[in-house]
């Protein structure tokens, strides 16, 4: 089974904690049969976008299992992740057709550009990189997904443009939302005094 890349587990944000509490109240509608374990984990991941230790503990308690048993099942499957994904998760397809057409070079280029490895998330949680086994668009190989957008017939030189486009798009949105705010957090001056 794949090596689980658990980065330093960050604490839950207040928003995430609120969602976790809400989840807790919803869990009992799903029953307590063992067969609900995987659909339940999928539901939790759909809500939180990953499985933090607190969520695993919650599911374990609900089903009357040990947390290690739940973690054992979750870590067996590729779908579940244990660190938060970026806001723009990048998935590079490394199926057979993509491999033959150089998918690993595309993956490397994303890793170099964002300075993280596959399975990791950038410090600003904007991007994360994962490899996927096949998205089923082999005729368009090599393929990469950024968020929900699929880029077919990828080339290493397209990588920079894609990352840039996402960043520009974000800046635009931020400006549209609040034209007076500085566009990126790094511009914020620390409070004086």
């Amino acid at each position, binding site marked *: 089974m794949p090596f689980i890349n658990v980065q330093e587990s960050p604490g839950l944000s207040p928003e995430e904690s609120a969602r976790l509490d809400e989840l807790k109240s919803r869990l009992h509608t799903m029953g307590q049969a063992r067969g609900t374990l995987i659909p339940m984990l999928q539901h939790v991941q759909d809500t939180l976008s990953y499985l933090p230790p607190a969520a695993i503990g919650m599911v374990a308690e609900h089903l009357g299992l040990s947390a290690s048993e739940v973690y054992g099942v979750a870590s067996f499957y590729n779908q579940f992740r244990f660190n938060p994904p970026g806001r723009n998760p990048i998935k590079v397809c490394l199926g*057979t057709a993509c491999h033959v057409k150089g998918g690993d*070079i595309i993956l*490397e280029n994303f890793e170099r550009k964002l300075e993280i490895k596959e399975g990791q998330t950038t410090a600003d949680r904007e991007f994360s990189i994962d490899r996927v086994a096949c998205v089923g*668009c082999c005729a368009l190989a090599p393929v990469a997904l950024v968020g929900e957008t699929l880029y077919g017939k990828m080339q290493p030189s397209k990588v920079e443009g894609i990352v840039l486009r996402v960043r520009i798009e974000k800046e635009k949105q931020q400006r549209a939302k609040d034209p007076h705010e500085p566009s990126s957090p790094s511009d914020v001056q620390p409070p004086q005094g």
Partner: protein
Amino acid sequence: MNPAPHQMFSRLKDEADRRRKEFAEAPVPKIHIGMATCGIAAGAQETKAAFEEALARLGVAARIRTVGCCGHCYAEPVVIIDHPESGFPPIFYPEVSAGKAGMLANFFLKEGDPRLEHILGATVANDLIPSVMEFPRFNLETRVIMERCGRIDPEDIHDYIAEGGYATLADVLERSPAGIIEDIAAAGLRGRGGAGFPTGRKWALAREAKAPGKVVICNADEGDPGAYMDRTLLESNPHQIIEGMITCGCAIGADTGIIYVRAEYPLAVRTVTRAIHQARGLGLLGKGILGSSLDFDIEVFQGSGAFVCGEETALIRSIEGFRGMPVHRPPYPVEGGLNGRPTVINNVKTFAAVPPILQNGPDWFRRIGTGASPGTAVFSVVGSVVHPGLVEVPMGTSLRTLIFDICGGIPKKKRFKAVQIGGPSGGYLSEPHLDTPIDFDSLAQAGAMMGSGGMVVMDEDACLVDVSRFFLDFTQKESCGKCTFCRIGTRQLLGLLERLTEGLGREGDLDLLQRVSEDVKNGSLCGLGKTAPNPVLTSLRYFFDDYEAHVREKRCPGKMCRPLIAYYIDLEKCARGCNACEGCCPVDAVFITRDRKRGIDPSKCVKCGECVAACPPEYDAVRRVSPPHLAPVVERPPPEKKSLELEAENAKKPG
């Protein structure tokens, strides 16, 4: 008293026919857009939006209908325009981008000029333009399982019924279950998941099982990285699969159906969930199907992405909420499967083949394909072929016909080297095998297997050692870890192959590869371990030279293994002043030589090959060689100092 199933069904059929007629007779052009995952990936959403925008702007009335995927992936996004008023037959347009959509709306829909330079052909025979049915990509195919894919709207159950769907169901409900199983057995249908177990026998065993609460599972856990026909079927024609599952439920006496589909296929999950909901709404699923006494309902279970869950016992464990690890058989699932209940597990394509068999009779099915493997096979042919996509051919078709006639052969005038069939569990076949008929037994004899139906064609530039390493990397990660030989053996095989591709191979490595492969094959419980060494074994058998070159000469004949190759720029051909390669290099490895040409710094080069693509064809100056020492050394001139730096240096100088 409930009306008989036939009466209930004819009411549904009338309603579907009425809707179909209303659509067909509407006096406006119809635009059919293929909207499965691959079409959407190629830009079908934008195409659809462009049509909508153009129709509104031009004030042209037309109906847009979304259909599934017809399997012609090379032509995506595919659009068929039916414009009877123009006097032309329905026309098949390939690669319709948003721009092309606007153009077609203007010229064809508004002015009646079909812009023949953009067409692939008409969809029916006619006197005006050639029909696509005359092309080998179309007329050499025989469609049984995929017949309605790309023709119907997968989101509308009435469309399927109007095309003759669910027509066998009323019969099935009134027949004896034994008769249904006899028909399936007489047709000689074998499991399309790859192993080829006779479906009729499986159903008969499940029928004989006495325990209550039998289950029908449709295995759509398509894990092979390179096969996507199950996804396409679920997205393009989910009802045919549901119809097959209800038939199975009726035949074996089950009341529960489960479609186990990968969570990585969100569109397939959505489409099939909606289809189940619609079928329930029309009384085709649930309590008392079509007014009969049969209760059968289907739910969707999303598989979480583990290749081994394609194995039936592992799949069952996963639905039960455990790690998907295979267990010993017997008991077989037909005796004690999901939670100990008798369970039939069949592949998507197997269920999809059931309605056509019952519709046309077992003899019709027997006439397609070969004696031992009747019917058709669906392949996803990808890699180095001109027309990649999904192809459905009769069993027994030769590989040569499939690759060269149907899929158009190898592009760029390159030579055929190998075809990999069956994904990580399958093997390679070389040129002498091109005339092998494709069926379960012939492929197994040659060392490959039908498997998932994934077929990757490789040209002379492919390195089979590298591709084998890729497959072992996959199976090693996906091994569940239960059997020692699979867990440790695949790790060792991967290590050996990595050594070879990095140019660190030693004498004796090839014997070791062979021996470990055979041990893994013999020492594993389930199909994953038993077949994991197949890529290594077949490539050793048919492409031994490739391996020898890696070990003895540290050379990669396909120039794929990056540690064994180098790029350089042929200074004879390089043009002064052209900057294409330097501009595209992601790591700044391209430098300017003394005579203003370009050179590559091997210490920085990551060998991505971008400069080869960027170099204008009239120069064609970038070369790839293996082993790397063949590349001539071009010295990088010392960096020119800028005037400011020089001043600073001068200032530092004492005196």
